[in-house]
């Protein structure tokens, strides 16, 4: 192993290299493009033996990746925001065809108005697409999760998005422990299934009538539910080899005897840890629940984390217009019928508006001091 100073983009690129991706396809977009360029450089420098399909748009990027996956190759792509929206049709198609493509996503706000700054709106737009969605809190986790994503994808036969925020993570350097190739090879051996194979001709995606369609969807959802077991299992296997345990679906931080839980995902988690430490030092019983797997949503694991708290504050870097924050809504849905407790949901940090330790602390204070909520969710930082 060697420790390197890497941006989140580079961490994703190193993971793709270590996973020995066979086909790469992408269309440049800000702020995801440094990850793309880094992998292309690995290929050009002869450090990575990968076929690169230089497509003319994001939609074709995922289409080419899909063709490659159907022909049995380990396939990777990178995108975000408008690119992800443009891919949306193919996103659902990939998931329905159960192809284990891994995509790094440098989360960015959606237009309009035009923004190139971070938030989770792009990922949330794909919440029903059938992709597993994992969120990372730092650059080490980006590398480790991307490696794990290949194992999860190929085990579940489902595509996986590895989310990290634009600039905050994609362009910020941190120390990252880069694993040895041999150890990675042992963790993620090739598990090749070629749906398109001249030696075993099959018709893929034939017109499907009411007698079959719903059953396909049932099995697709079963695979997604099955990922709730596979994701923690892969995290454990990874921890055994590399010593870093990302816990799988959710992670509780200082949740022992916590009365107030903060629920967050992505870059907010790192800052929230610092806030929780500070509040604990002041004697306040605050803990943190990190959502690592947004899809499938770990409702049972989250409920178990929240089994003894008196209140929950959810930080949402996204807005579903007229309905609130995605994480807040999912948290409430997970608790409904099991526990009755106040869940305060804050919409924050949209389009790159800064949310640091000070702001997270303010939201926690607001949640504790404001007994009556004006509505089901609040906007913070306007």
């Amino acid at each position: 192993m060697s420790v390197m100073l890497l941006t989140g983009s580079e961490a994703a690129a190193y993971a793709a290299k270590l996973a020995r991706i066979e086909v790469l396809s992408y269309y440049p977009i800000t702020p995801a493009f440094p990850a793309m360029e880094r992998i292309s450089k690995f290929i050009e420098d002869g450090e990575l033996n990968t076929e690169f399909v230089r497509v003319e748009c994001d939609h074709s990027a995922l289409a080419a990746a899909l063709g490659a996956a159907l022909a049995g190759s380990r396939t990777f792509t990178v995108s975000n925001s408008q690119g992800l929206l443009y891919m949306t049709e193919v996103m659902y198609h990939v998931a329905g065809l159960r192809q284990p493509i891994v995509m790094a996503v440098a989360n960015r706000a959606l237009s309009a108005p035009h923004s190139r700054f971070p938030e989770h709106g792009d990922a949330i737009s794909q919440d029903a697409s059938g992709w597993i969605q994992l969120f990372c809190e730092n650059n080490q986790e980006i590398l480790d999760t991307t490696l794990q994503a290949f194992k999860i994808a190929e085990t579940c036969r489902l595509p996986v998005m590895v989310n990290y925020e634009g600039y905050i993570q994609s362009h910020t350097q941190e120390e990252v422990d880069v694993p040895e190739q041999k150890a990675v090879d042992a963790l993620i051996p090739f598990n090749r299934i070629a749906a398109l194979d001249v030696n075993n001709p099959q018709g893929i995606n034939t017109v499907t009538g009411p007698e079959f369609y719903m059953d396909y969807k049932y099995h697709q959802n079963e695979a997604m539910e099955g990922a709730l077991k596979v994701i923690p299992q892969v995290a454990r296997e990874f921890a055994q080899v590399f010593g870093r345990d990302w816990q799988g679906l959710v992670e509780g931080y200082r949740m022992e005897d916590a009365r107030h839980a903060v629920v967050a995902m992505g870059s907010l988690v790192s800052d929230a840890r610092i806030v929780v430490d500070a509040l604990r030092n002041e004697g306040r019983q605050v803990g943190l629940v990190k959502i690592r797997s947004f899809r499938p949503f770990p409702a049972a694991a989250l409920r178990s984390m929240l089994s003894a708290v008196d209140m929950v504050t959810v930080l949402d870097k996204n807005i579903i217009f007229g309905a609130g924050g995605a994480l807040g809504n999912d948290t409430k849905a997970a608790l409904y019928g099991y526990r009755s407790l106040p869940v305060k949901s804050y919409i924050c940090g949209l389009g790159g508006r800064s949310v640091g330790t000070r702001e997270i602390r303010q939201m926690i204070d607001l949640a504790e001091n404001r007994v009556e909520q004006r509505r089901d969710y609040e906007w913070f930082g306007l």
Partner: protein
Amino acid sequence: MTLSIKDLPQEDLFGPGNAGCRGCGAAIAGRQAMKALGPRTIVSIPASCMATLSGSNQRTAWQVPFYHTLFEIAPAVAAGIRAALDAQGIRDVNVVSWAGDAGTADIGFQSLSGAAERNDAIIHVCYDNEMYMNTNGQTGSQTPLYAITSNQRKGKQTCKKDMLAIMLAHGIGYAASASISHPLDLIAKLKKAAARRSFSYVHILTPCYRGWGIPTDQSVAVARKAVECGLWELYEVEDGVRRRTYEPSFIPVAEYLAPQGRFKNLTADKIQEMQDAVNRYYHREEGKA
């Protein structure tokens, strides 16, 4: 090229059991093309009649791997398949994206242009029935001038986009037109395309009885008239060298147009206009039919 029908394989890799209409030009084209392409071929077909008639539920009319893609992406998918085969060291497989006129010239054009510009080692086949037949026959860019469609009852007022010229403008090594009425010509062209390790484009005229308003047993005959009157020229451009592969007999264009329901509103002067255009194109004397 002296291809004989005796040289063709007996087996049909596409056809039996397909759900095409009677006299479906697209299905005929598929059957003919597979005589050239053979069993080591992977076919991607976007949303279209051809995708729909190729299989449903657990049945397929293809004896080779067939993937029904989204509407816009057949060439991009094919490019990805080629990349995967290259990555796995599989060199002897034809990768074909097979799209209708919409999946080629309209909604599918961006990914087609991308694959052509990259010179991906795939064959793109356009089977052209000149309107959006899988949705009842609306106008598209491949609909010819004056043709009546389901959403232009008075006939299209602009010309058919010249896809072969557009594809040749990409600098590709091989492009050809073909017609189901000339199967040996069609098969020879696909064999040439398959022998290359670069992007090839083959555009096949495939009449559709419903859209064209012709009897179901006339698909091949009408396609032949399109060729013989000069409106559908059979040619290829191989590494920049253009060659007409069949010399038409120049029957009057009226013999092609008049029997078709989609041209029922054509007046004599419009037919003459089209005859004049053919005459000019082939440098024939004005007025000579």
